[in-house]
């Protein structure tokens, strides 16, 4: 599968509540080959500090050709990216990793928490292209954080249910509280967000419902070379899997949950 290392021009920068920023990049070559769940490694700042690229999921395929990233400022690298101005160039390497698997016949549900929702939009775009209209459950701290995703998902034709930690929108509580109300017809759940949330989704799905999750670890290369992104394999102590290469999307049953 083709991979690119290039500078791309920032076409648009949108700032949302809770330090969330959406960058639109003219990366039409990446857009042409990427699958939902794949990520790019992004260079941050002007010098060699920070040294390493940061991994970000591809958030959407942008209408005019190109991709979007949805990121939350949590540290130095993301703070620098948030300062990017329209017209500046950003260096990406990607698309990398294994994306989400194809949907089954039947109903499909996406569950996202916090900034973990980022790849779900691209996933929804892709499912809708195949005629699959997923039910989307999204959790966030408060109403404002939903602004970046919910309108777009509804425009795609998806049913969206939201929760907030502070009760300012939708269900007051965890997004996983919404799971028991799911129709029995759901054949597959795609989940993405904080580990405790994904663990709860995985428990809910058990062996009954297929469940894919997207994991995050610190990464140096994103290419399978540094072996820095190791995660344990259930029932084994003699080997690890690597999130950048074997993932970031895994079957929930392949993951050691806390």
């Amino acid at each position, binding site marked *: 599968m083709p991979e690119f290392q290039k500078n791309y021009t920032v076409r648009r920068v949108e700032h949302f509540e809770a330090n969330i920023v959406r960058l639109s990049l003219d990366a039409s070559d990446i857009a042409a080959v990427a699958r939902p769940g794949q990520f790019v490694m992004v260079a941050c700042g002007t010098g060699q500090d920070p040294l390493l690229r940061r991994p970000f999921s591809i958030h959407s395929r942008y209408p005019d050709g190109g991709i979007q990233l949805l990121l939350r400022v949590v540290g130095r690298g993301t703070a620098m990216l948030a300062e990017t101005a329209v017209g500046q160039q950003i260096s990406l390497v990607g698309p990398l990793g294994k994306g989400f698997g194809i949907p089954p016949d039947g109903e499909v549900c996406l569950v996202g928490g916090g900034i973990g929702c980022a790849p779900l939009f691209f996933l929804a775009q892709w499912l809708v292209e195949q005629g699959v209209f997923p039910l989307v459950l999204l959790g966030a701290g408060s109403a404002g954080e939903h602004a970046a995703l919910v309108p777009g998902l509804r425009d795609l034709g998806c049913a969206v249910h939201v929760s907030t930690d502070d009760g300012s929108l939708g269900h007051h509580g965890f997004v996983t509280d919404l799971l028991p109300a799911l129709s029995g017809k759901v054949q597959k759940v795609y989940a993405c967000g904080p580990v405790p949330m994904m663990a709860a989704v995985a428990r809910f799905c058990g062996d009954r419902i297929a469940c894919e999750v997207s994991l995050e670890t610190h990464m140096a*290369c994103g*290419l399978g070379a*540094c*072996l*820095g992104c*190791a995660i344990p394999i259930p029932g084994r102590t003699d080997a690890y899997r690597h999130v950048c290469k074997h993932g970031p999307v895994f079957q929930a049953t392949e993951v050691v949950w806390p």
Partner: protein
Amino acid sequence: MIVHATNSTPDLHVQIGTLKLDNPVMTASGTFGYGAEFAGLLDLSRLGAIIVKGISLKPRAGNPPPRIVETACGMLNAIGLENVGLERFLVEKMPYLRQCGTRVIVNILGDTVAEYAQLAGRLAGVAGVDALEVNISCPNVDKGGVAFGAVPEMAAAVVRAVKEHAGQPVIVKLSPNVTDVALMARAVEDAGADAVSLINTLIGMAIDIHARRPKLANRTGGLSGPAVKPVALRMVWQVAQAVRIPVIGIGGIATAEDALEFVLAGASAVQVGTANFYNPRAAEEIIDGISAYLGQYQEPSLAAIVGTLRHD
């Protein structure tokens, strides 16, 4: 600033024992996987050599995560020498490497002198393995965990054992965590090494002040990247003056300028490590930059400038 020259391309070849490289730029062990990982992003056939992730007799799982931390202009890793083991390496990785169109150097590591000898013996006849690089930074389990790379006699014992069994040129990779790296270099030269490469990583640490724990599960890790370049360059310069065998420079090399500093200090060749992670094209860019520099100064060959640092 390096400007491109128009005249005939300079000769970049490098001779290391019986091994001839087309150019001096190799990818460092543990930073380039088994080659295939980078195939989509650069032309592997242009590399001077690929040095594969350190291989042990048996597969190793490596250390538990977290294994990497970013530091100022560098990173710490405590991968713990995770590797597929010699047999799977030969079956699963060598066929791909053999057809890459570049030299392949196998980095080997053991817990005992006997293991190093066995690895060398088993690799001696393997087609496509062009040289061995002996990583002596591992702790010697027979000697209570003191690193082979910190004691001249222990390093020499490893090298003698490897040389006895090896069918290819033997490069010995030196640790920088010593008082006198030139002493170590002379010890392995006397023991028969065909070349030395340096530096491996400096031992470092990082702490999460909120969790009050080391950021690496292994507590300490190896520091690499541009941060270590000044130390690496100084050691290469010292070693180049102390030995007659070729010296291969490693440590924070990210640009042709960096590589040329090592060459002027006395390195016949270089390895690119951490830079591969944040600039997968780094090695190719460095080859082009070295050519351009030689052209700019009308040097006929790389060999013509090795160790030509003036210090009057």
